């Protein structure tokens, strides 16, 4: 692309966690509109895979991770030198199939052996968060499966394979009408932070995009998708 005098020009590549797909696509369009001459290209994927790609020299300009741990994998190698900023938070919700056939009303129900329960595996953020809330609530959950990501959990909820699951609020919202979410008190004890940072070698526009995500408008779009403000 030809160089232009404006600060924000050219193409920037944003590596973003898959759960940000909808909101970031919207933000990207708005950013392009606000900064003519720029183009935002997204690479959505699992945060850990994205971190791996960046560490292998992938052409990323911005990294928005769904977990501080993955962000740390990148800052450790020096690919990101700026301090990552938390731009959104996500909290857990109890997800049940439409109509709540298992009559699940709170965390305590997760200990019932006759209910089918899905949780995230401890290795992924929602699983780590779930572990925290159960510890806080003093409940010994009896899960039937420990899923590798939230989407796998939600698939099972929406198909009625499990009676209850613990997932993020944003995911319940994205899953549509087949899944109902229930808030619970202990959720506040395990909040998941989404950090964002431009890469060290990124052009100036990358910093502009990070700023745009952190702006009022950015926050509004994220809130609309179910994220909590940092």
């Amino acid at each position, binding site marked *: 692309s030809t160089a232009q005098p404006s600060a924000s020009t050219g193409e920037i590549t944003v590596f973003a966690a898959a759960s940000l797909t909808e909101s970031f696509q919207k933000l990207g369009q708005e950013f392009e509109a606000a900064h003519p001459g720029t183009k935002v290209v997204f690479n959505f994927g699992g945060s850990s895979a994205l971190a791996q790609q960046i560490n292998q020299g992938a052409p990323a300009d911005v990294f928005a991770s769904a977990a501080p741990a993955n962000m740390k994998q990148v800052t450790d190698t020096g690919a990101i030198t700026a301090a990552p900023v938390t731009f959104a938070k996500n909290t857990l919700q109890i997800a049940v199939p439409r109509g709540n056939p298992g009559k699940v009303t709170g965390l305590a129900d997760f200990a019932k052996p006759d209910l089918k329960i899905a949780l995230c595996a401890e290795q992924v953020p929602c699983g780590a968060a779930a572990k925290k809330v159960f510890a806080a609530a003093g409940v010994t959950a009896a899960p039937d499966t420990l899923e590798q990501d939230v989407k796998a959990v939600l698939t099972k909820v929406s198909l*009625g*394979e499990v009676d209850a699951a613990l997932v993020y609020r944003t995911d319940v919202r994205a899953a549509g009408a087949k899944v109902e979410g229930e808030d619970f008190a202990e959720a506040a004890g395990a909040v998941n932070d989404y950090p964002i940072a431009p890469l060290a070698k990124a052009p100036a526009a990358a910093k502009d995009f990070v700023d745009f995500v952190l702006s009022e408008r950015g926050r509004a779009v994220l809130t609309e998708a179910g994220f909590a403000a940092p």
Partner: protein
Amino acid sequence: MRSRLPVVLVLPAVVGLAFLLVPLAGLLVEAPWTSLPAQLFSTEVVQALRLSLVCASLATVVCLVLGVPLAWLLARSELPGRGLLRALVTVPLVLPPVVGGVALLLVLGRRGVVGQHLDQWFGISLPFTTAGVVLAEAFVAMPFLVISVEGALRAADPRYEEAAATLGASRWLTFRRVTLPSVMPGVVAGTVLCWARALGEFGATITFAGNFPGRTTTMPLAVYLALETDPDAAIVLSIVLLLVSVAVLAGLRDRWIRT
């Protein structure tokens, strides 16, 4: 007494071999070897490895029992619409495995078309069980077997089957004693593909059978989870899986072929 191997064949063959093996060598070089022994003997890994081998082998048996007859039907009978059937059989290959898992849930899940009756009438529930893992792997791996075997059957000379018929052999006996042995290399190839695919299966398994250590956590699932927190550990786990599968295949295959 034969001439030297032609460059025009050997060169691409060597490039192909390198293409397949160099990335593996890369993995081996990058792997944190020091942690390998610890990984190898951790109970979770041993458990996952055993479960993987058992499920992949059972799935392969299911595929052989159902798939070889299916291949025979596609290759030898004069069904109308065989071409379409043949294409439909390849579909689970193209289906993203996660969607394949969803499809299995739709049919065999708790609320599935077939599954709800299994649950009500027999109290059988397949999701979240080891049997579910076997089913998911079989669903994904069977097309490999069917298509390989069908290719082998098509290349075999059907006149040997005619000769068997004139000796009084029923179609079944002919199939067992004449057709099958003569396409053995194709069946072995298909079995290898099937077993390997089942062993590496991830998407359909986790979607249909979930992930619970000792029950449904196979090696690929363990690898994926490890990738989330400790990529190096994931690589080591993969290498363990590789070494075991290479050992099994190198050990068994030439024995099968020879018989």
